[in-house]
């Protein structure tokens, strides 16, 4: 059905101009031992759009992201990314080809400072070998400083200058989430996978985070795939929404379409988030 779709389309929901499909997942199935986590899920992501994945707890949302950036290897299905078809991704390839992400329960490097955490995000962009780095000389030095400049831009963007040199372990939850976003951005990704970026935040923090996400999307033109429980947020900022339940896709479309989808309503009856 995707064959004859236009190269670019206009998202009614957000009035955002989205590009061609850059990531296309074709009937992905994943299971641990006997337990089925995902069954034959297919959906696509268009360039520059904000794509939301929603669904009740244990619906397989996080697993979906883990499949996309190669943490998990699906038993069947294929992943088409930038026209290149793969049985599965692997973390390195994913990162290399511009997929970055954040995690549901924060996965920062606790022992390191905010700055170092964000610098690690650029590790793939650092070319000088370890001997040069040991000497901290010439190109290595210049490179380090160049990347430092980049990271400082991100730090400014996320308004976390003050905690630059603080070990992330000591930061409050909300800030940690922000730093994690920073680390992902440091890689200057094509696609940004956000796993519940606003979980456990208060209203202001959520607003900030929303702002950051939207800014990232239109300043850097980054495509965003996000998992979020806060329906309000999802419905305002996302162009299209995939709904998963018990590892199956039960709905896919613009926020309004999804809102009207009967299965979705059933799935959500009882435990409607917020």
């Amino acid at each position, binding site marked *: 059905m995707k064959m004859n779709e236009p190269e670019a389309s206009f998202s009614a929901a957000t009035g955002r101009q989205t590009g061609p499909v850059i990531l296309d997942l074709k009937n992905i199935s994943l299971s641990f031992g006997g337990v089925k986590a995902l069954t034959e899920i297919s959906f696509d992501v268009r360039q520059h759009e904000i794509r939301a994945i929603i669904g009740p707890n244990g619906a397989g949302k996080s697993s979906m992201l*883990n499949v996309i950036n190669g*943490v998990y290897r699906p038993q069947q299905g294929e992943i088409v990314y930038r026209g290149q078809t793969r049985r599965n991704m692997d973390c390195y390839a994913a990162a290399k080809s511009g997929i970055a992400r954040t995690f549901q329960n924060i*996965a920062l490097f606790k022992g390191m400072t905010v700055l170092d955490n964000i610098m690690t995000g650029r590790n793939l962009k650092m070319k000088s070998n370890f001997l040069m780095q040991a000497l901290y000389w010439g190109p290595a030095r210049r490179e380090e400083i160049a990347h430092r400049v980049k990271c400082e831009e991100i730090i400014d963007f996320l308004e976390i200058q003050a905690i630059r040199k603080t070990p992330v372990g000591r930061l409050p939850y909300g800030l940690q989430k922000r730093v994690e976003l920073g680390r992902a951005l440091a890689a200057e990704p094509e696609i940004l996978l956000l796993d519940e970026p606003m979980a456990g935040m208060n209203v202001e923090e959520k607003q900030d985070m929303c702002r950051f996400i939207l800014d990232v999307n239109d300043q850097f033109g980054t495509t965003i795939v996000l998992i979020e429980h806060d329906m309000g947020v999802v419905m305002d900022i996302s162009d299209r929404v995939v709904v998963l339940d018990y590892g199956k896709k039960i709905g896919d479309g613009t926020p309004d379409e999804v809102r009207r989808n009967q299965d979705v309503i059933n799935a959500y009856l009882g435990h409607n988030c917020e």
Partner: protein
Amino acid sequence: MNINFFFEVLIGGLLSGVMYALVAIGFVLIYKASGVFNFAQGAMVFFAALTCVGIVDKFGVSLWVAVPLTIVVMIVLGLLIERLVLRPLVNQPEITLFMATIGLAFFIEGLAQLIWGSQVHRLELPIEDVPLQLLMDRFNILVSQFDLAAAAICALLVTALALLFAKTKVGRALRAVADDHQAALAVGIPLQRIWAVLWAVAGLVALVTGMLWGARNGVQFALTFVALKALPVLILGGFTSMPGAVVGGLLIGASEKLAEVYIGPYVGGGIEGWFPYVLALLFLLVRPEGLFGEKIIRRI
């Protein structure tokens, strides 16, 4: 290849394996419930054996008096260790705890020789360490009757511990703690009392080990080295599995003996030092969770 001899080596190996398992059990007990890799186990074994024979030699009492006394001493020692060393270090990284137990090992070794002197002692148990005549005559296979007895005792010990874990209230608590500290605390299990009990039990195991190894090799400082024999067993059997310790012990014992006898001569011999480790290592590469450990799914 002479088949009798093969069996001799195999049986000899298995029985030595039992002796290794004995030591390994001591490690597992502590590690399972408190995540402490207790390097002082060897020192405790030495301390227990030395105290026992020390009492016998100094006060000329019989073993039947000395053993109960030693049991008391070991229990006290266990409790003290838990109270003075581990309780202050609770929630520290494993490596810190590990280091602490090495410090503890030094302390105990010094203490033992301070109290009982540095002389070596003999320890004669009622069972003599000679080949079993019957098997000798029948199949011309040498099997030490002492080792057989040791195996029996080890079996007894394991069943006793198994019962302790399975049947008693304390045992259930122990298992709960082993599974999940937080949860155990949540349901109101007094973690520290459990650990105290555990260390006391570890002390007893050390005594049994010390008596058997002591009778086998004589009671001397080198008893502290038996810990090294237990490590490959632990890698193979898993740090948290009692059956793992036993099966691992048997496997290591048998394989290292077979290797020494049948491979050793071609490579200059003396491979027992590293062979068990390499074996355990190769095994781990295939099965990182060890013999009986449950599969590790790394989630994020």
